[in-house]
């Protein structure tokens, strides 16, 4: 299949400090691709520049062959790329239903079916339809954040640390959902510190360190890699 996302020699700097130092990355359509690495490796910055929240210094980001550089976030969302931001960031004082409607903000067509689709994926959200999002548990908020992103009908969903701060059992559930979303034909680009789970789930993985890509390969292959094991999985060489 074709590459839905291509990043070419991307450089991003905050002030004088380069957070991303010229990376190349491709995401094949219909796959789950993950970007693992420790704190400050530049993972989030990479996602933010794809979403248009951060302006890159140089390089190019192609979505479906079209450059996303210079486009505003709303234009990028309407081309089919949505970000599930780090730390869930649901709209706490809006109801679950309103949160989902915000997800479909840029769509002009009917959203009723997609809403049902999201509720089918997350029955818990249906139960809490009229509840304020701030009253949900962490796991439920993460479901809502994912559901909200799906409401934009994206072709590519980017998730920034979906397992952050969640109980292990809930994390497992979240990864099941990621696989389910992928089965429905949506490409997923996933950032994780929980390298173990991410590598098990992903078709293709990139390992990032201090702004550069250290290695890449199939998820399961990297899981066996001695260097990765030592650095990210907490297993000795």
């Amino acid at each position, binding site marked *: 299949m074709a590459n839905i996302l291509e990043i070419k020699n991307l450089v991003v700097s905050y002030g004088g400090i380069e957070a991303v130092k010229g990376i190349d990355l491709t995401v094949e359509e219909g796959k789950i691709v993950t970007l693992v690495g420790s704190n400050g490796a530049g993972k989030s910055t990479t996602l933010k520049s794809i*979403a248009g*929240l951060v302006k890159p210094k140089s390089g190019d980001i192609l979505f479906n062959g079209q450059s996303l550089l210079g486009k*505003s*976030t*709303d234009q*990028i*969302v*309407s081309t089919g790329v*949505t*970000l599930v*931001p780090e730390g869930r*960031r*649901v*709209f*706490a*004082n*809006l*109801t679950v239903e*309103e949160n989902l*409607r*915000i*997800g479909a*903000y*840029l769509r002009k067509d009917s959203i009723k079916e997609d809403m049902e689709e999201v509720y089918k994926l997350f029955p818990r959200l249906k139960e809490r339809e*009229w*509840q*304020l999002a*701030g*009253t949900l548990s962490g796991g439920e908020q993460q479901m809502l954040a994912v559901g*909200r*992103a799906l409401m*934009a009908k994206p072709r590519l969903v980017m998730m920034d640390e979906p397992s952050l701060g969640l109980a292990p059992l809930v994390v497992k559930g979240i990864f099941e959902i990621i696989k389910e979303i992928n089965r429905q034909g949506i490409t997923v680009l996933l950032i994780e510190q929980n390298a173990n789970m991410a590598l098990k789930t992903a078709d293709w993985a990139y390992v990032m360190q201090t702004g550069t890509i250290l290695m890449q390969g199939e998820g399961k292959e990297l899981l066996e890699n001695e260097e990765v094991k030592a650095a990210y999985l907490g297993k000795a060489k």
Partner: protein
Amino acid sequence: MKKNNKRESIIIAVILLVVLAVAFYLDAKLPSYHIAIKVIKKAAVYSLVAVSMNLLNGFTGLFSLGQAGFMLLGAYAYAVLSIPVDKRAGVYQYFNGGIVKFSLPEVFSGILGQNVGSVVGMIVALMIGGLIAALVAYLIGLPVLRLKSDYLAIATLGFAEIVRAFFQWNALGPLTNGSNLLKSYPDLGGASSYLILIGLFIAIILLLVNSTYGRAFKAIRDDEIAAEAMGINLAHHKRLAFIISSFFAGVGGGMLAMYMGTVQALSFKSTMTYEILLIVVIGGIGSITGSVITSFLYIASLEWLLRGLDSGEFLGIQAPGLFKNGFRMAVVSVIIMCVVLFFRKGIMGDRELSDLLKSKKHTSKGGARNG
């Protein structure tokens, strides 16, 4: 949820009709200078301005303190456009009768007949005031809306002060009458006409708040970054909220001018903005019902019910030594402190009238929250 909607709408409609009926009754029974009529008129105007401020501060999360400035623009626009032509020489006595040589109520009277025409003319003048405020909001919004929280508040407060000084400038005298009063312009009528017109404006704001745009505003208030990631254009929506809020503040300013009978830039001080902010906070940030109820409570107690505290007798208690000038404000301050202490989120929190009427099961708002 849906089932209750009909019952709620009926109850709300009944409440509004009763209020309106009372206003009509008072208009018919009492002279127009009676304190009850005055209080209703002023409170209605304040509720419109408070709701417009709530749209910005409560629903969009932009802390702006420029309300008095936008009200001033609306007030001057209304006054300048509706002073009758034959009175202009008297009003603009230091500026050769001013440069505006027409009066909208008179122009429309010529087209639509005396009564209808002059009301239409007054409303058109109010709208023009609102539009001027909106236009100015657009222009100052370009630089100012890049600022966040307190910085935005300081910048908008500064704007309001500049406008106030600017309008007293002698060089603008032919238009604004410099630092002199503008007067002799017509008033819309009794308390009921104020309530109808302002009810209409507030209904428009209510529709806006419950629309897709309103939801986007609330999303921005809750989490700017997430809202942006969902494809909400922050700059565009903030500007929109600022312009709409200023429009209604301008209209409210025009109506305040009508109510007061005279306009002078000097009276649109920052204290006016603080008064309105107080109403918004006490009513509940993010509750239109709260702003309206508090406007009426605040104006009624300040202008009427607590007057006795300044003049020697209150609730039948005679204490000329204690109840003298200024004691009223001391009591008001204590009341406000109590409200702030015991109603942390204001009288209404972020609930509306319709939320109060709903069965308990569906009102998760205002309940316990765990982030």
